[in-house]
């Protein structure tokens, strides 16, 4: 039995009549009163008139009183406790010091909540106080945890936390208010401020959010922000990287900014910060000279009293691709060999051809009076093409070019050309009567870059080129869909009249040779290739390959061997990614701190079929320390692909170096680059955003405070909890008292008596 007393009451009507009946009766009473008033309208005595009206009205009210049967309803009620949520930001930026040399922002909140414990306890009378951290998921915390467990969340999502706490965990209990402790460094929905949809969402919460901003804005910090760069660039085309240097507490200081590629400085600039909180843009324009994917890093120095040093460098990956292959064709003299090669290169849309032909030498007599006016010849720009602009070419082709004549000799530029190949360029030497052991120009330095060396006089006997076993599979000479179709394609070519006599250097691969002309017991190479340093070189030891282009058509059957050979050769020389048998791709190319590094390896056999069950080995190599960090192995599936994942490494640039084998067959090597970022969005910015916290308070009806200025918990706006009736109710009638009936009868009797007295009855 509930012994609690009644603690509330209200006046009620106990009449069993429905409302409409009560209304009708009420209207009837009013009509009766009005009728009586009408009946005495001609009463000359004002006093009598008033008396009769008063008596009739009083009787009417008394009758109404009985009709309504008024009573008192006694209630036993209790007030429901709603919730007040205390939300503490647990993102990584809360680990910054709240003031220079001070405790972390998170620890400061913990101390404040410990001090405010009595005030929070006092609130428990009316509310259930809940303490949560958000990272951005809600989880219960204690003030002690805030000081001992560092915050680590990678993002700050205040709106999501407010929505989650509003949904609540205790069924129908509503939220009366929120106390939000944060530095305001939201980097999700509120990153741009409480505007637009975010503002609407805040307003729709329907609870006041009082904010406590933690941390001082005056921390000293230098950060690299706002990196803008394209995902890819074209080789030998300039591109621009834009960054912003944000300095707090560096007014008037000059800051050097360095752009480096895997440890090598690419460009550097200096910026001057004008004020104590300044952002200065910096742009770097540079020209990548190699294709591939590379990691670039922008760095500013770290000063001793900076709040955070991890945001002083930022890495990104850049994929450098080729738009067209830029070919320099240098021709010793016009010939049919040159004519058909030019015809092929000119009609190839993927080739940007620059050519220079020696149309006359000093010993030729054009028979003109004025060479300047009568000849269309231009000076041979040796310095420009072999020195200044050499690096702008992807491939340099020398076609029977060899002059001892000082006016045409390239001896001065041989070292340039040799180094050009060594550093990644591509060189083709096509034979004839002026090169590769013929003519008087030996070009010893340039010859070092070639896969063959001269070995005697040319052999002028006609012969049919013979494909070697290596040539049957090599990307340059593999012309068919398989070995047999490739061999058939080469066998169909006509005989050619003559070969320069050369021998292959150690490490060179002979793709096509002479069937019976021997050099040191081996068949003389006709087409040979090799890698030289970072570059590649190819020799074609004849000036009669035009037979493959032209004479091959004499029987009427179409023949594209010549075209395909040169197309393959150019692609191989410039390291076309599609020609590699092992493709390595970092997935993704840029990794957030603490995330694993993924790599996808695609292996193909020499005839470019998917290599199933290939054994793949990938090494994660740190460019910063020049040391391997980890090695993973895997096996490719039916599609020749395998995906591997390295555990999260330290921030910095890395190379992924892969190799693959299937049984004893080597499937090649490949590499890619990946950047592991030093800081995520949380730690890149040490700033505090009191303006956002004020906006949140304003929009939701709360109040904004600065934690450092509060010594105790202030009185924050909270919604009153609703009253809820939970106990008994008891009705006490008022109308059934005898004296109310006596009053009614007296009133009615007095009116009757007065009417009779005044002559109305």
């Amino acid at each position, binding site marked *: 039995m509930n012994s609690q007393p009644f603690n509330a009451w209200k006046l009620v009507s106990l009449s069993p009549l429905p409302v409409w009946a009560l209304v009708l009766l009420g209207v009837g009473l009013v009509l009766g009163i009005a009728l009586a008033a009408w009946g005495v309208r001609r009463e000359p005595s004002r006093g009598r008139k008033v008396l009769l009206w008063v008596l009739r009205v009083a009787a009417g009210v008394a009758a109404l009183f009985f009709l309504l049967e008024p009573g008192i309803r006694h209630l036993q009620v209790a007030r429901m406790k709603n919730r007040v949520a205390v939300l503490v930001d647990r993102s990584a930026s809360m680990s910054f010091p709240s003031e220079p040399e001070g405790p972390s922002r998170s620890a400061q909140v913990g101390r404040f909540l410990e001090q405010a414990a009595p005030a929070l306890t006092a609130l428990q009378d009316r509310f259930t106080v809940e303490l949560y951290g958000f990272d951005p998921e809600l989880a219960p915390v204690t003030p002690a945890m805030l000081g001992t467990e560092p915050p680590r969340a990678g993002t700050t999502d205040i709106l999501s936390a407010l929505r989650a706490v509003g949904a609540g965990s205790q069924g129908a209990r509503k939220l009366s208010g929120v106390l939000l402790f944060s530095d305001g460094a939201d980097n999700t929905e509120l990153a741009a401020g409480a505007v637009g949809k975010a503002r609407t969402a805040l307003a729709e919460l329907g609870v006041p959010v009082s904010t406590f901003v933690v941390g001082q804005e005056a921390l000293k910090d230098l950060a690299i922000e706002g990196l803008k760069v394209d995902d890819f660039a074209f080789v030998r085309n300039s591109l621009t990287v834009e960054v912003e240097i944000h300095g707090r507490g560096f007014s008037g200081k000059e800051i050097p900014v360095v752009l480096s590629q895997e440890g090598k400085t690419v460009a550097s600039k200096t910026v001057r910060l004008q004020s104590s909180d300044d952002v200065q843009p910096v742009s770097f324009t540079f020209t990548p000279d190699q294709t591939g994917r590379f990691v670039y890093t922008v760095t500013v120095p770290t000063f001793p009293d900076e709040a955070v040093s991890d945001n002083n460098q930022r890495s990104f990956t850049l994929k450098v691709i080729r738009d067209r292959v830029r070919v320099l064709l240098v021709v010793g003299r016009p010939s*049919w060999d040159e004519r058909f090669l030019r015809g092929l290169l000119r009609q190839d849309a993927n080739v940007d051809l620059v050519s220079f*032909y020696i149309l006359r030498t000093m010993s030729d007599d054009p028979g003109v009076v004025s060479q300047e006016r*009568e000849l269309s010849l231009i000076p041979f720009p040796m310095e420009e093409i072999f020195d200044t602009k050499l690096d702008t070419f992807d491939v340099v082709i020398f076609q029977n070019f060899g002059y001892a004549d000082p006016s045409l000799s390239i001896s001065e530029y041989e070292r340039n050309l040799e180094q050009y190949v060594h550093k990644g360029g591509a060189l083709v030497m096509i034979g004839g009567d002026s090169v590769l052991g013929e003519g008087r120009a030996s070009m010893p330095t340039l010859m070092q870059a070639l896969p063959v060396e001269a070995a005697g006089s040319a052999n002028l006997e006609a012969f049919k080129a013979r494909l070697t076993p290596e040539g049957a599979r090599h990307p340059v000479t593999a012309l068919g869909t398989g070995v047999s179709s490739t061999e058939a394609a080469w066998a169909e070519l006509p005989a050619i009249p003559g070969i320069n006599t050369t021998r292959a250097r150690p490490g060179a691969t002979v793709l096509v040779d002479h069937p019976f002309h021997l050099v040191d017991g081996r068949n003389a190479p006709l087409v040979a290739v090799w890698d030289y340093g970072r570059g590649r070189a190819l020799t074609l030891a004849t000036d009669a390959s035009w037979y493959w282009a*032209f004479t091959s058509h*004499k029987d009427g059957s179409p023949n594209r061997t010549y075209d395909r050979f040169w197309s393959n050769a150019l692609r191989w020389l410039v390291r076309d990614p599609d020609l590699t048998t092992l493709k390595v791709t970092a997935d993704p190319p840029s990794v957030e701190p603490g995330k694993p590094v993924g790599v996808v390896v695609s292996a193909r056999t020499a005839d470019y079929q998917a290599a199933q069950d290939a054994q793949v080995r990938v090494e994660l190599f740190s460019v910063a320390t020049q040391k391997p960090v980890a090695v993973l192995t895997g096996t490719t599936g039916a599609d020749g692909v395998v995906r591997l994942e390295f555990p999260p490494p330290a921030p910095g640039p890395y190379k992924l170096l892969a190799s693959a084998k299937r049984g004893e067959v080597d499937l090649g090597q490949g590499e890619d680059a990946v950047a592991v970022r030093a800081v995520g969005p949380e730690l890149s910015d040490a700033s505090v955003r009191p303006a956002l916290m004020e906006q949140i308070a304003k929009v939701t009806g709360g109040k904004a405070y600065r934690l450092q200025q509060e010594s105790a918990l202030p009185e924050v706006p909270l919604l009153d909890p609703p009253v809820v009736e939970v106990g008994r109710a008891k009705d006490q009638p008022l109308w059934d008292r005898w004296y109310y009936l006596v009053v009614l009868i007296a009133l009615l009797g007095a009116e009757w008596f007065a009417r009779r007295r005044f002559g109305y009855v």
Partner: protein
Amino acid sequence: MVPLLSRRASAFGEKSRFIPAVVQHGGRWDARLNGLRRIAWELQRRTSVEVLPDARPCMLESPEIFEYPFLYLGGEGDFPPLKDLEVENLRRYLTFGGFLLGDANDGSDGSGFDASFRREMARVLPQSKLAAVPSTHVIYKSFFLIDATPGRLLNKPQMEACTLGKRAAVMYSQNDLAGAWSRTEAGDFEFDVSPGGEAQRELAIRTGINLLMYALCLDYKDDAVHLPIILNKRR
């Protein structure tokens, strides 16, 4: 000729040299063989090209023409229609990169060699008719800077060409180019040149050099790197 040719020692045999081949047809095809030899000699003398100054007769039906990417087809008077095999072979020759120089040794226009040549070209390359070569064509600057293309005669101010893609596969002159080039064994020029005399002959030789250079270098002199300098020279 021989002493001049021995200036340069050449180790790669004749196939690497420029050899003018001459089409043998049913009419008078061999009226200007000296002229061909002479222009090849001039090519060797004035430029870096290595030649064999030998006018090699070729039958159009023979696959042998594919060993000579330059063909000369001249004649005095008309010639009978080519056989179908000859037409087909010549068409394939031109399509895959060969070059044909047609030369009306009789200076005819509408009759004689001219009529026969036009008739046969319409069969060989029906999709590409002979059309006037514009003055901006690269043959006007492929070695010499020239403004006209006369021969022994100056009946027509312009040459005509059949073009395949961007390449002129056939060039045709009605001015008897080879007549202006031709010398006797004794060294005298075989024919007078009119109306311009020896100046015209030199221009005809230069026209020949330019044509051969075009056959060998195609549109090399149209490359962007040459344009500003050539434009400057022409001012």
